[in-house]
């Protein structure tokens, strides 16, 4: 039994890494721009479908590289035309707008690629377990961990060491001052949004290897992402990362003891966090609005 528990915790970290990837993109966008991106799942689905379309021509690896970039490009267009006018307004308007976008994305992917789930081909050598004992450590899941680690590492590196990253971090704390200091805030927001959507697209390509690829692939992934952000603490990307991992582990443990509650348990966790320590694991005091 304890072996099952251990396996599930281990596996939960892997799955949690995936949730973290999706949540980080959402968190980036929320922190800097105050935009609640309900269409994040739609961008995820788009990334997955773009990869699916590219694979017969370019193979898996190029698709993995290109699909998120294409998705991010679309994200930049959406930001420029639709989201930019909403900055400074009540976040509920961005909610309504991105909600509408989510509808459009689902419908368009269904129109372009059909409602029927399509088979997504991952390179064969990834599809095997690495060890007979730890059979759940498949090549694909390890690969996914690596990609997430690279992406997250890259993100944190960009934020810490580049000028763009520094500006994003500063802007998250006080955008007005950053603007007064001469930074082009519009471009900053656009790029930030683009990075967030890139992560959604990347999560999509990875998801397609794990899940069936249908227009609703992103639908069940968006709520856990919000939970990860809240549990980890609003405003803290590291917190979001931890939040994602925690979701994976808690769900995994629930599967051992109370399997039908694996979904509900993350909401219970969020509820407890909010009642006991609202700012989350790594959120800052005073960021209560």
């Amino acid at each position, binding site marked *: 039994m304890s*072996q*099952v528990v251990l*396996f*599930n915790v281990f*596996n*939960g970290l*892997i*799955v949690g890494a995936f949730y973290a990837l999706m949540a980080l993109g959402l968190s980036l966008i929320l922190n800097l721009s105050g935009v609640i991106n309900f269409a994040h799942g739609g961008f995820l689905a788009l990334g997955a479908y773009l990869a699916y379309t590219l694979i017969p021509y370019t193979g898996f690896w190029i698709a993995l590289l290109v699909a998120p970039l294409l998705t991010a490009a679309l994200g930049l267009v959406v930001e420029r035309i639709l989201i930019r006018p909403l900055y400074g307004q009540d976040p509920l308007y961005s909610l309504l707008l991105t909600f509408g976008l989510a509808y459009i994305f*689902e*419908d368009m992917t*269904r129109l372009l690629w*059909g*409602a*029927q*789930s*399509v*088979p*997504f*081909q*991952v390179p064969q050598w990834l*599809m*095997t*377990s690495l060890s007979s004992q730890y*059979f*759940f450590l*498949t090549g*694909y*899941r390890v690969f996914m961990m690596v990609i997430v680690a690279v992406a997250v590492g890259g993100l944190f590196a960009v934020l810490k060491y580049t000028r763009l990253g520094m500006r994003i971090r500063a802007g998250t704390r006080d955008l007005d001052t950053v603007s007064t200091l001469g930074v082009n805030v519009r471009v900053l927001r656009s790029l930030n949004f683009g990075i967030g959507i890139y992560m959604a697209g990347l999560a999509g390509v990875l998801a397609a290897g*794990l*899940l*069936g*690829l*249908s*227009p*609703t692939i992103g*639908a*069940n*992934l968006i709520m856990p992402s919000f939970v990860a952000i809240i549990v980890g603490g609003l405003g803290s990307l590291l917190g979001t990362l931890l939040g994602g991992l925690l979701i994976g582990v808690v*769900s*995994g443990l629930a*599967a*051992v003891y109370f*399997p*039908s*509650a*694996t*979904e*509900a348990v993350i909401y219970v966790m969020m509820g407890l966090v909010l009642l006991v320590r609202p700012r989350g694991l790594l959120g800052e005091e005073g960021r209560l609005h």
Partner: protein
Amino acid sequence: MARANPQGISRRTLVRSGLALAGAQVAAPFVRPARAAGQGIKIGLDNPLTGAYAALGKNELVGCQMALDEINAKGGILGRPVQLVVEDSTSADAGVAVLKARKLIDSDRIDFLLGNVNSALSLAMAEVSNQKGILHIVPGGHTDAVTGSSCRWNVFRVCNTTQMEANAVAAALIERYGKKFYYITADYAFGHTLEAGMMKAAAPLGGVRVGGDLTPVGSVDFSSYLIKAQAANPDVVMFLLGGDDMLNALKQAVQFGLESKVHLAGAQQELEPLQGLSPQARIGVWVMEWYWNQPGVPHVAEFVEATRKRTGQVPTARTWFGYVSVWTCALAAAKANSLKALDMAKALQDFHLPPEVALGPNPAFYRAGQNQLLASLFVGEAQASGATADDLFKVTKVVDGAKAAESLEESGCKMKWPT
């Protein structure tokens, strides 16, 4: 008007609005004609076209349209042309399904109602159809209650009950693989009854449940359950899941290489999830409610051809469900020589479908007292591909539905006819 009142409402506004609303009720209606009522017969289809069940709903729609064309080519129902009125029930919103059912009945004046893929929505719609006394055929909603504890005189179902599916496959599994079963069951009525059905069917043959898990519907990751399943060391891991859950679970099971350690199987399987899996993940022993590759059975090849011409793909069980549903309306009306629901319902008791509609080796008929279609069940193995690229299922045994069905008493249906 100046901001005399910050919240924007005053007693005056209230009174004004109230009067306006009241006046609107009494004023003469500006009548915009609803969809043209005429001499034709209308069949209303209230099924998902968006959301998680969109693919299944669309395939049922194709089947309905094919039946419609054939019926109209033969002169329609009782000499009158037939029209299909289609509404999107959405995949999960019972309120919309009920709304659309009423729209079809009240506004479009349909004669017969078809739907729904989603079991809960079927039950909700059955409440409406029963209240309005409309003949209602459920093509593919699987919860046993539809022709069980919640059965109604005007509601008929084409697809099988979960008990039938379990009965069909249990013996084959025990014979081939062994007696120790681990269940990964979707946590809703469909999964519950399927598991209960399996245990009941397997028990007299020595089948034993070594463990199991209920998984939330819409689960993304099945690895935890698969880890537990493997640790329990069963002969067979039973995947009692529907739609996307089945796809995800199988995909992940194969990634774990689970098929080399235990046998993977289940009860109900459909072509749609198999089509969404990559070839190496198309494994396991399952039961399908209808399959297109039936060599030697008359009329099936024509049906497959006609579907291929229309959609470029082979028909699935869902296509057949839709096809049978529409044909049932036509045949019942012809036999009863009436369009009244009660006459048609009575005509359908023990009604046998003609071979070109049954499209299977065994007789297909609606069992009297239950309104449940008993046809054939196809036990077999999923395969990467067969003779053609779309032959994803190798049928090893065809079970007669009438033999696999539970008794009328066991179904729990106590049919109440209107006086």
